């Protein structure tokens, strides 16, 4: 049985951990003090690079590498903490904000020290009123105790933190959408390049980092890189010779919801399999697992045949899905995949920022097609291919071999791929919201095509048995193409 490995969440349930004093009793700010006492800023940046920490917000981009892109000579430089957690199925940042806000502040302090940043904006999802309240209170306390503000603990370090509530748009979680929103404009992602690391808030270099990513920093500094890298697998990237280390180190706050007996956030080492995670969460509720969304609603779905996929950045990417935000949604045999896709597409059609053509008009179109299918109005036709032989009536003639054509399924796949192409991983959009739309659309359809076809045939939502609904592995594009990475010795 896999054990939880609580690091970020270790003291989450300690009463009063949200206050400075209790947090302090549990090593709070000691790691920050260690950082400023024992290390130069560049040492910290190097430690983060060596730790292999990857961003927990969705893209899984190496944090150390991101920091290395920030020009050193342009000041001011900003830190934006992305606390806009709005990916459906994701709810781990929220507990940090509500229960242990000082941990985030400590992470921010370490990042600011390493990068020479004096101003931090925490962009908090508008609905997180409690989280914002708790963080604001903690910030106030930290100011009072001299851990924020000017000349922190006599070191000459200045750090200010401002919290900014979002106004309820999912796209403001995308880093440049967040920056625009923070600047007081419509939350519309920017064209990249330039990336925020070079030109972000107020056109100055900006480090955008998820809450969970920042909360990892105190432990990397406190316990050391060696300790940190022992958690989670490090794979070898075989495109290079010798294979290049591809670390998936540390723990992940997996948010598991849906048809499991004990839904919630579980902190586990990266790299356990999907099946193991379901077990950790008390096993499936109902008879069996039909499908699992591994990384928030944007991630391509996994079928029951793919549950042996390890839930880390590299394994999931090579399995044509993604770890994303770590929001895992389990579906049992009672779920109808068409209905699930409709649910998700309604969300995306509502949340497209509307800036660029394919996403603005493609996303609602995808939703409408799925809606039509779910309503029982999906189009299907039967075509007859002429083939000559002994026909039923015993005479020489057309044997009339027929084929079912599901026009709307082809249309659905084509429209989704025209927003962002799942096979070539190319998109015609400004931001990757486009691929977040076509990934679910195309993967649900391809992996559960029998259920879509049945729904069209029957003229109403039709739920098949898990066996019948799922495309077998030999016809599953992702299963066929997936690569299982090997750990480095």
């Amino acid at each position, binding site marked *: 049985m896999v054990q939880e490995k609580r690091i970020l969440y270790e003291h989450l349930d300690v009463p009063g951990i949200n206050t400075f004093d209790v947090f302090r009793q549990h090593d709070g700010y000691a790691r920050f003090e260690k950082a400023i006492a024992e290390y130069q800023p560049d040492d910290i940046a190097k430690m983060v690079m060596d730790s292999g920490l990857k961003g927990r917000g969705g893209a899984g981009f190496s944090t150390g590498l991101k920091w290395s892109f920030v020009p050193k000579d342009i000041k001011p430089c900003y830190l934006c903490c992305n606390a806009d957690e709005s990916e459906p199925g994701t709810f781990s940042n929220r507990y940090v904000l509500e229960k242990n806000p000082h941990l985030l502040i400590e992470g921010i302090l370490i990042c600011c020290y390493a990068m020479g940043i004096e101003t931090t904006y925490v962009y908090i999802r508008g609905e997180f009123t409690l989280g914002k309240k708790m963080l604001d209170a903690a910030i106030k306390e930290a100011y009072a105790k001299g851990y924020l503000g000017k000349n922190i603990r006599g070191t000459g370090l200045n750090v200010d933190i401002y919290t900014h509530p979002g106004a309820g748009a999912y796209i403001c979680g995308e880093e440049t959408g967040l920056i625009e929103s923070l600047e007081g404009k419509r939350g519309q992602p920017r064209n990249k390049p330039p990336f925020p690391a070079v030109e972000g808030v107020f056109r100055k270099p900006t480090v955008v980092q998820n809450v969970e990513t920042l909360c990892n920093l105190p432990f990397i500094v406190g316990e050391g890189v060696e300790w940190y890298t022992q958690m989670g697998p490090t794979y070898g990237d075989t495109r290079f010779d010798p294979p290049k280390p591809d670390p998936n180190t540390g723990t992940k706050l997996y948010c598991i919801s849906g048809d499991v007996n004990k839904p919630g956030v579980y902190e586990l080492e990266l790299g356990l399999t999907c099946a193991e995670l379901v077990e950790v969460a008390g096993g499936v509720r109902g008879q069996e697992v039909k499908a699992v969304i591994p990384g928030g609603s944007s991630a391509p779905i996994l079928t029951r045949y793919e549950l042996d996929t390890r839930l880390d950045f590299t394994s999931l990417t090579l399995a044509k899905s993604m770890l994303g935000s770590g929001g895992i949604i389990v579906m049992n045999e009672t779920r109808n995949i068409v209905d699930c896709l409709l649910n998700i597409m309604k969300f995306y059609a509502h949340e497209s920022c509307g800036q660029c053509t*394919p996403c603005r008009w493609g996303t609602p179109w995808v939703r409408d097609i799925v809606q039509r299918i779910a309503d029982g109005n999906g189009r299907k036709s039967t075509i007859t291919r002429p083939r000559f032989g002994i026909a039923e009536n015993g005479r020489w003639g057309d044997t009339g071999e027929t084929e079912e054509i599901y026009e709307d399924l082809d249309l659905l796949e084509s429209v989704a791929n025209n927003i962002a192409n799942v096979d070539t991983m190319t998109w015609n959009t400004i931001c990757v919201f486009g691929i977040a739309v076509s990934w679910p659309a195309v993967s649900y359809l391809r992996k559960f095509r029998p259920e879509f076809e049945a729904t069209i045939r029957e003229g109403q939502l039709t739920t098949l048995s898990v066996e019948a609904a799922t495309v077998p592995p030999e016809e599953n594009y992702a299963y066929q193409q997936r690569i299982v990475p090997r750990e480095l010795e």
Partner: protein
Amino acid sequence: MAFIKLNELEVEVEDGTNVVEAARQHGIEVPHYCYHPGLSSPANCRMCLVEPHVFFPPAGAIVPDRQLATGCTTVLRTAPPDRKLDGKYDFIVYTDSPRVKKAREDILEFLLVHHPLDCPVCDQAGECDLQDFSYRHGHDKSRYLEVKNVPPKKDLGPDVLLYSTRCIVCTRCIRFCQEVSGSSELGLIHRGSHDEIDIPRAHDGMPLQLLDNKLAGNVVDICPVGALISKDFLFKSRPWFMKKESSVCAGCSVGCNITVEYKEDGVYRLKPRFHGEINQHWMCDDGRLGYHYVNSDDRLQLPMTRVEEELRPTHWADALTQVTEKLSEADAAEVVVIGSAQGTNEDNYVLQQFAHEVLKTEQLGLFGALPGEEHVFPQFTIEADKNPNTAGARQMLSNGAPVLEGEALWQKVSEASIVYLVNGAPGRPLESVEKAALESVDFLIVQDVLPSEVTALADVVLPGTTFVEKDGTFTNSKGWVQRVRKTVDAPGEARLDWEIVQQIAKQLGGEMGYHFAGEIAIAIAENVPGYADATHQNIGDSGVKLA
């Protein structure tokens, strides 16, 4: 200069040029909607996708880049020697690869998903980028079966209507109001497929703000589809029925380059024409909508003479006989000739020649000053002098001697017995000094285009022509000499201003024999300092700056 491989062409382009412009310079169309050379590039329409080719080290070869790039934001620059592609190219880009073509088709399909395609009743049809690019780059049929959005039609301001259904949300209009006019009246409301352009509506005690700035008409021009429509032009004509002629706006001393669009029965609209150093892509609404007097039913069509205290129409021979009789009797010292800052350089030059050579008077004035308000916008200035040719008229009339203007002029007028005044400024009010001076004149000859306060005082009125009815040149406040061109015919028996003057000169025995305005321009080039290069041929469509 950057050395680029553009499709199969090898071309040189200036550093800093984007792919759309570089292709345009070499006759290749990269379709686009949101990009406009006069505005910032948000790259939101995704129509101008092109395929850069890059060096891919693992393969050791130049390969198509993984993602297509937007041509409007892909800027071409000289690469450092070690980064040249194929040893020589600074950039390799394809605008016609199969991937690019497919992307264009896909984008166009999306653009048409909610589009009403009401081309038969759409003003833009015929000059619509959506029509044109669909035809050239799009699919031939739609796969969209669902219900289309029908956002409301909106009245945005004095001259602009928004047919929201046709809007493709390119945001050009929004950016224009932010960047060029700086007035920011337009913005987006709602989100995603429900995006709509709107003006600030009254809310929370804030008033409604209309799209009512003096540059507002430009948003209609830059709207790539028929979403923003000029009320002035609405349902007036199909674009292909109108003829077009390059000209210059007569609304103020900026001298915006324009295209006059007209039919036989009059001028239909004015549109700005690009000039990099004068008006860029824009013009103001005063100029744009100020042409209506040209088509007016009140235009002077026949000469008039005063009979029993009343102006009565007559024929040219009669009017000109009266004029020549009076002039031949008069003493040169008692005659004042006044040119117009509304007239062309040619008109004023002929008038000056007439005054000096035929009437032998030195008393030449400029009636003109038509002061108005100056309006300064972040990227455009409307000048206070509402005459198009004050600078040119002054230079033409002076020919050595200073031109009488203002008080000095009215002083001379009040002492004169005969005054020959060319006006041409519609609706210019007379000040009391001016009026008193003109009333004191024994015989007042006025050449004008509309009944005015000046014609009301005249003894003889000669119908002249407006800037759209003649060829000639204007000199703007910065010394650019530019051409106006004849489009429509002058109404009734109205004649070219310089022709009238020349006719009078001939009847008085003068020797002037110009046949067309270009000849006068040659005379100007020979005689007026600074105008040596300003022949019509040289001026062409882009003007000549005075030396």
